[in-house]
Every structure is written in C-alpha cells, then in structure tokens.
C-alpha cells in the first residue's frame, strides 16, 4: 500500500520536474514579440497610473496650498520608475506643468531653470566637486538660481509590487535646500485609473463616484421611448362545421395589430437598479382605421443578477397596467359581443366607434445598460374576458388576449 502511494508521489513529482524544465527554456521569437507587446501595454498602463498620482498630488496642493502667496517654483526633477526613460519623464513633466497651469489655487508659478538640473563642476579652494546645479551650494549662490525661483519641487515615481508610489517634496532654494513639504501617495493595480480632467481636479473619491455614475449611467430619471407591436389572438368561432360535421376553427373577427409609440419616465429605487418604476404615455394611429392613446405604469424587477451589470445585458421581469382609449373602425371590435350591421353603418355615416379599456401586462425585458431594450409581453384585457371577438394566447385563470414585442431606446 505504501509502495503504491510512493509510486503515485513519484509520478506527480516527475510531472512537476518536466514543467519546471519547460519553464527554463529560452524565449522563442514569437514569445519575444509577445513580450514586447506586453511591455508596451505595461508602459501605457504605467503612464496612466502615474498621471493619476500626479492628479492626486496636485489636488492635495490645491486643497492645502503650501505657500500663502504666489511663488515661483522650479520643477527640479521627475524620476520615473527604474527602467523607464526620457519619454515618460517628458510626458509626466508636461502633465504636471498642465496641472499647475490650470490650477492656480496651488499658488505655484512654474519657472524654467536649466542651471538647476545641469551637471556642473566647481573648483574651489578645498576641492573640485561635480553635481547638479541645485545640489551644490556653490552653484546656488554663484548662478543666482535663488533669484529666479524660491522653491524647487522634486517628484519620484516608483513601482513597488502591485503599488505605484509617488514621493513628492518641495525644497526652499537656499543653502542646503531644506525640505518644506513632502508627501507620499500610492495607487494600486486593483484601483481603476480615474482620468481626472486637469482643469477641474476632483478628489479621488469624488472622481470615482463620477466615474461609477457614468459607467452605471444612473441619473435619477431616465426617459425611455418604445415602439411596440400588439397582436391580438384570433377568436375561435365554432359555428361552422366541415362536411363531416366536425367544428372548424374560423376567425370571426380579425383585429389588426396596433403599433404604439410610447414615451415615459423611469426611476429606480437604488443604485443597483434591481427595482425600477415607470410612468408612460403612448399614441397609436393608422389612417382610416384607428387612432388612440394609452396611459400606464410598470414595475420591473431584475432577475439576472443582484445588481445591474456594467458590461452584460440584464433581464427584467415586468408587471404593468394601462388604460387605453381607441377611436375608429378598429375600436368597434373591442367589445364582448360581435360587431353588428348597425354599427358598421354608423361607422360609415361618420359616427366613429370608441373603446376604452384597461389592460394588465407581464413581460420579460432584456436591456443593455440604459441604452436599448427588447421585451416580449402578454397582455390581459379583463373587460373582454369571454369575448367572441378575442381569442386567448394563455388562459391561466386570467385570459391573455394580446401578445407582442417592444423595442426601447433610453435618453
């Protein structure tokens, strides 16, 4: 028994050995191409995350300015993550400059100072020293950097595992460069980049809420417009028989389908949009046949998840009701009894038949975000239960005489 277990362990171990040997093979050319693509993707993601950190840093300077009066500041250094080059440095310098220019509340005026970052050598009585302009007291005093700007700002961005960390500090341009302000902020790969507007910087929480609102497209009211076709079940008239005496199913009255244009206002009870409610008004018109209006309301319940999906279509179960008013020859068929000759003559004499009735609806609606929807419904008109003019699509104690589909567009 133990021997068998040991054998099994040996098989599993050898499998792992094969896997690890495969992992050490040199890269193939197509793998190199994939690696380059991956690098490009990482670099673009890194740029966005870095810009996001700068936004947050400048938002901090805007909310709590370091200086009481406007001050000239030199952008003395932007260090990008180790391994990335001058292109990214230039991008971040430009982004930072844009942020400062568009957010005067920071009380900073950026000034150009090539002497600050240039590498210079200075020979003094004690020694010959080399370094960047701002780093050397001797250069600071002789080049007059302090007269150009009073402060220098240094930014450093580094990738630390799943975090991107920004370390910013502001120094006073005088002997030894005392640091007057420092801040460390970080963002994680699990946090989506907020892409804030430079001209209207918001806090991270505000920007995130705005971002989510846009994604969910969740205003308090939305305004759907629907186009729907209502079909009516044919009545089953059994008064005729075939040559063998058997009853035949013959439509006694054919009610033309009604095409409705319905506009409404919809609201939801929570951000998740599990429940929504809608009030709507509709019109229908067919020349020489009918015109009419309806007023109705409906409740929808999300059945495809716990909250509305940001990426996938949602499925709602809908319950609703409406009051409909029709005028014209079609309206003559909306009654329990069959239409008679007197009514047809009256219609031809200009007295148009009218019909008013209520209806109740069950529907399934597939909706893609708050953009488009497609629904299929069954509708019951209790006033015409047992009518000779209507058949039924479903009789579940309540007769459903009408069925149809609607396409909706949200605004």
């Amino acid at each position, binding site marked *: 028994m133990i021997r068998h277990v040991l054998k099994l362990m040996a098989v599993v171990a050898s499998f792992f050995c094969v896997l690890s040997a495969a*992992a050490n093979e040199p890269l193939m050319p197509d793998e190199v191409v994939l690696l380059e693509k991956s690098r490009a993707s990482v670099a673009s993601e890194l740029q966005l995350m870095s810009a996001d950190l700068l936004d947050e840093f400048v938002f901090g300077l805007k909310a709590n300015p370091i200086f009481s009066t406007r001050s000239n500041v030199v952008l003395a250094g932007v260090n990008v993550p180790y391994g990335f080059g001058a292109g990214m440095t230039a991008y971040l310098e430009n982004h930072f400059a844009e942020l400062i220019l568009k957010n005067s509340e920071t009380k900073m005026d950026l000034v150009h100072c090539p002497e600050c970052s240039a590498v210079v050598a200075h020979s003094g009585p004690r020694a010959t020293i080399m370094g960047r302009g701002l780093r050397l007291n001797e250069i600071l005093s002789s080049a007059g950097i302090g007269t150009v700007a009073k402060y220098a700002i240094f930014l450093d961005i580094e990738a630390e595992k799943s975090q991107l960390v920004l370390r910013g500090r502001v120094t006073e341009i005088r002997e030894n460069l005392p640091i007057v302000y420092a801040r460390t902020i970080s963002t994680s790969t699990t946090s989506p980049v907020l892409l804030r507007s430079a001209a209207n910087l918001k806090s991270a929480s505000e920007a995130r809420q705005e971002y989510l609102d846009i994604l969910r497209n969740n205003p308090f009211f939305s305004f759907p417009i629907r186009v729907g076709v209502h079909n009516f079940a044919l009545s089953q008239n059994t008064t005729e028989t075939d040559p063998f005496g058997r009853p035949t199913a013959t439509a006694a009255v054919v009610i033309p389908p009604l095409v409705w244009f319905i506009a409404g206002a919809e609201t939801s009870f929570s951000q998740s949009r599990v429940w929504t409610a809608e009030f709507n008004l509709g019109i229908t018109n067919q020349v020489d046949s009918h015109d009419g209006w309806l007023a109705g309301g409906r409740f929808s319940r999300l059945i495809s998840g716990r909250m509305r999906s940001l990426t996938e279509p949602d499925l709602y179960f809908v319950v609703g009701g409406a009051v409909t008013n029709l005028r014209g020859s079609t309206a003559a068929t909306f009654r329990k009894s069959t239409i008679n000759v007197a009514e047809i003559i009256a219609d031809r004499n200009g007295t148009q038949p009218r019909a008013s009735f209520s209806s109740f609806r069950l529907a399934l609606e597939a909706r893609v975000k708050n953009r488009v929807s497609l629904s299929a419904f069954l509708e019951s008109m209790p006033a015409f239960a047992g009518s000779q003019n209507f058949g039924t699509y479903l009789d579940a104690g309540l007769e459903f005489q009408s069925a149809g589909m609607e396409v909706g567009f949200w605004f």
Partner: protein
Amino acid sequence: MLIFYLASLYVVVPLILSGIFDPAPGLFRTARETSSDAECRLLTGEQMRRRLSEENHEAFPRGEIMNEDLMECTGRVLPMAERRAPVESLLSGLSAQIPELVRTAKLRAPEKTLWRIEAFHDDPLVAEKVATAAKTSLSELRDSVFDQSPVLGVSAVAAFSGMKITEGLPILCREYASHLGQNEKLLALFQINPAETQLHAGLCTHTGDWQWLL
C-alpha cells in the same frame, strides 16, 4: 487495491480541481506565468472568512470536505522579469524598509536633529530613489531634513570607491564630518552585499563618529 484507487481518487481529483483555479505555480501554471503578473499572499483564517462572506460564499451545511487555503492575488505594476532581480527586490521593498530604518535612526538621535541623507548603490539612479524615499519619509514625520547631502571632493570619492563598504563608510564619515553642522546627522543607506535585498543604515555625526544602525 480498491482502497488504493479510492485513496488515489481522493488525492488526485481534488488536486486537479484546486489546481485549475489556483493562481499559484502548480500543475496548471508554471512559475514564470505566475510570478510575472501577480503578487499573491496566503490569507489567514480570519481574512479568509471575511473575504468569503463578502463574496456571499455559502459553506456546505455539513462543513467543507477539505481544508482549503485562500490566496489573494493582485497584478504587479511591472512584471517580474522587467528589471534585474536585485534592483527589483530593493525598489519593491522601499515602502516597507525605509520607514523602519528611519524610525530606528530617529531613536538614536536627539529630537531636534537636522538630517542629511546619503544612499550608496552601484547604480546612481537606485541610490537616488533610496535617498528620496528616506528624505520623504523623514520629512513626513515632521523632522527637519536637508535635501542636499554633503558633496565630497573627487579625490575622497575616488579613494572610497576602492574600499569595501563596511570599511569605507567609517572613513568616509570623517570626510563628511567637516561638512556637518553641530545638530546635523547624516543617515547613510546602503547594501553590504550587492545580491542582498536588505538595506542597511548607519549614522554619521559632525564629530566623525560612525554608528551602525541595522
């Protein structure tokens, strides 16, 4: 024999099933695939319970068949192979190591110390990043920090570059001392062995005394 096959089934099937969903290296993922894009940590029992309850994971009414571990993985900003391993490990640990070193240094210095920072590394860019992290960390603790570190003469730097860092730093401290004021201390950060991931620190005073911190 039947017992053997049943036992094998009991071991192998759960192994395969868990391996399919396991982000760690194993049957279905090589170490390269895993380490290049994810930073994983094993959750403790309490963290695991909290996470599962957040995701509405319902336990079986009679308990789980097996004891399971839960590993939380987040994507790395840069894949592992992007930078040299010693540099990657050093830079990835800055936020964890630097505050610790800074606190240790503060414990060994009087309250109103004026700080200067110097970092030593073969790569000047890495040295600058280490120094930046220390300067920012100390400044955030409301300590007075000078951004400039003393600039030594070319001859002193040339002499130091030929020495082992453990021998050179106490000597270099005497050179630095002449640039330091009475309340000033220089915090030096360095690696003793280029292959190690741990940063070390030492303090240099205006009298030229060198003190090893970590």
